[in-house]
């Protein structure tokens, strides 16, 4: 395959401002407030565990009604109707769902390989779309989604919900203002101690339920877990990577799966900046977090909070060893090498404002529709992390460094 065939010209203008935004508070502005009682009717394509969770969050937004469910796994209809609390119309083919007249927007929460087909047909049907991350399984999928949203003039919001978390936004603002000095490194990790394999009532449903474990449908840990961290690094650095290297393997759960059960990825960004990501499935000590390292301090960001730490001021970094008035070396002390284990300075949030990032993302999407405002985590945000996921997995698979410029181009 000619690698150049993957090259896509995405202009900076097309890419939009979102991934480079230094994050003003990004809840959409209420230009034309619409009464919360005005209904927004959503159709759901993909009513599995993630789709069901998003339905719960959308139903917490005033005026949202789930008007249709589409899936190919029969038991999900009853389970999802319990969540909607009504006999929501069901569809076994997304094209039939899209023929329904009473839908304002579509939520796509299907396996990654289906995102492109489901998002593109949804915007072509004239609906706005909330699409789960990662954007698409391949570069082609990612590019086509961006083009389809543009051509059809519909809003698209990608499921990078942490863009809507107030503590993430505050970190971006404060880091952008230089509070921890020049940022050169981000370390992100999502470590779990579980196989990632879900119970299957019948072996014939193995690939349907455990799609995350098979390359035909999934980008594995890089896509399902790492894409959030990748999006965060893109956001902090205000850029997409220049190159990526990585490793990974199926080393713990040799159970027929095809996607790695551990990955380690290094992205290099313009300006000599680096983002390192790790995902394990056999040790959960570290959990999920990202550390932003600057010359003057660090910040740890998690799914629930963020904590700043500051580097000690060092006017005299080493003590000289003097022998008979002659400097012969520097003393060695472990003091400066030990990890700092004291308290940091948590990001303070007004009581009750912390919120759930999923809910805030859903609420913001509905506000985008009501106000006809572009979502903050739009298709360009999704494209930037989506192509990074794809190229990282290729770097792991091919065992080499991949240059982004060989595959994507930002004019």
């Amino acid at each position: 395959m000619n690698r150049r065939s993957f090259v896509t010209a995405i202009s900076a203008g097309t890419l939009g401002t979102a991934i480079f935004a230094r994050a003003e508070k990004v809840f959409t502005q209420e230009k034309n407030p619409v009464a919360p009682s005005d209904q927004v009717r959503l159709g759901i394509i993909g009513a599995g565990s993630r789709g069901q969770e998003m339905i719960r969050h959308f139903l917490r937004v005033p005026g949202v009604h789930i008007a249709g469910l589409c899936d190919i796994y029969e038991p999900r209809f009853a389970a999802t109707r319990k969540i909607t609390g009504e006999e929501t119309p069901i569809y076994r083919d997304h094209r039939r769902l899209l023929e329904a007249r009473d839908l304002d927007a579509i939520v796509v929460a299907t396996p990654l390989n289906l995102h492109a087909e489901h998002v593109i047909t949804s915007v072509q049907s004239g609906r706005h779309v909330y699409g789960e991350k990662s954007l698409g399984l391949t570069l082609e999928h990612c590019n086509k989604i961006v083009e389809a949203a543009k051509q059809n003039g519909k809003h698209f919001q990608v499921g990078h919900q942490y863009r809507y978390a107030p503590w993430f936004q505050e970190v971006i603002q404060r880091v952008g203002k230089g509070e921890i000095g020049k940022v050169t490194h981000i370390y992100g990790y999502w470590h779990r101690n579980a196989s990632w394999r879900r119970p299957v009532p019948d072996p014939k449903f193995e690939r349907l339920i455990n799609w995350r474990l098979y390359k035909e449908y999934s980008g594995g840990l890089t896509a399902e877990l790492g894409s959030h961290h990748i999006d965060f690094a893109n956001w902090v650095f205000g850029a997409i990577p220049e190159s990526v290297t990585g490793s990974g393997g199926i080393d713990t759960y040799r159970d027929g799966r095809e996607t790695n059960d551990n990955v380690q990825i290094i992205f290099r960004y313009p300006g000599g900046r680096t983002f390192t990501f790790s995902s394990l499935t056999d040790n959960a000590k570290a959990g999920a977090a990202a550390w932003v390292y600057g010359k003057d301090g660090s910040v740890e960001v998690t799914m629930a909070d963020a904590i700043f730490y500051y580097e000690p001021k060092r006017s005299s970094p080493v003590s000289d060893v003097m022998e008979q008035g002659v400097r012969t070396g520097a003393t060695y002390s472990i003091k400066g090498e030990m990890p700092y284990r004291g308290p940091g300075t948590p990001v303070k949030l007004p009581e009750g404002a912390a919120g759930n990032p999923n809910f805030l993302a859903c609420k913001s999407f509905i506000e985008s529709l009501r106000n006809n405002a572009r979502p903050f985590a739009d298709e360009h945000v999704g494209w930037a992390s989506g192509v990074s996921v794809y190229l990282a997995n290729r770097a792991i698979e091919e065992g080499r460094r991949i240059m982004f410029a060989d595959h994507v181009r930002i004019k």
Partner: protein
Amino acid sequence: MNDNICPWSRVNHLIIAAVICFAATSSSPALAAPNQIFYESRPAMGTSFDVYLYAPNRERASQLFEAAFDEIERVEAALSNYRPSSELSRINASAADAPVVTDPEVFALLERAFVYSQKSNGPFDVTVGKLMKAWGFFRGAGHYPSSEELARARGQTGWQRVKLDQRTRSVFFLVRGIEIDLGGIGKGYALDCVARVLREAGVTAALISSGSSSLYAIGAPPGKAGWPVRVPDPLDRTRTLSTILLKDQSLSTSGNYEKFFQLNGQKYCHIIDPRTGRPVEGMLQTSVIAPEATDSDALSTAVFVMGPEHSARLLDSVAGTSAIFVTDKKGMGRVVQVRWPNQAKNAAQLIKTEER
């Protein structure tokens, strides 16, 4: 991962493991028994959740444990009042400003909790959040409140001060400062949710518990009539008050020993009577059996506050319930049973057993 077969050493509460272990040892490969028992425990909702389940192998058991604990996490993420990102925290933070729309599941649970407030005429009240804080039982080890603190907390308590609108699925606090605390029903609800998930995954025998407060039995161990469960004597918890068999049922226990503090020789337990604003006195322990853990959890708290003399109508209102009370009579226990399946043992400290 605490993944053991036959977890004798970890049984520290209500569960009797005798039958569990016999069943497990009988499932040797030579006998070609289809299932073994597996066990895992993880911290959640401020306590530990224990799951015992029968599965054909460890791999399958691990998947089921993941599904079970994922479900507990899902419920906790929605209902915790310790997590600022929970749906309950969002409701508590905003419902005094304007009605807060919530999803059907959370709304239905709130409705169910308020039905218990209505049925009990107050003793079960999920708006006790401020009273729990005044008495130091939220993130604390207890604290005797001043009369001003108590008066303020009582002014911010009362299920009648919350308006649930079914049409809009919204929650509105008529008084600023109200806080909903689902501590009296949430863990039971989580057990029911886990039971549903395990059943959907094909599990036919499991026992799930949340700390020492509630447990739910799916089916029974192979060849057995039910899961044996020990209800402890509250005056000496190493002794047994009653042993029962549970099958597709739940058991919840409320005790004055779970969280309490002592001041000037007086014991103050964490179960508050919303009518007086003070910890319940004169009650040592209540246990309730019900078809669903949501109900047994709420009922064990409600009847702990109400006492055996005033609980009959409430217990009668939920089909399939039974209860056992141990009240405190000058340091001695008095046992009262309501449709309880087994006669309580006459433990040394228990002076009288009554059937109502």
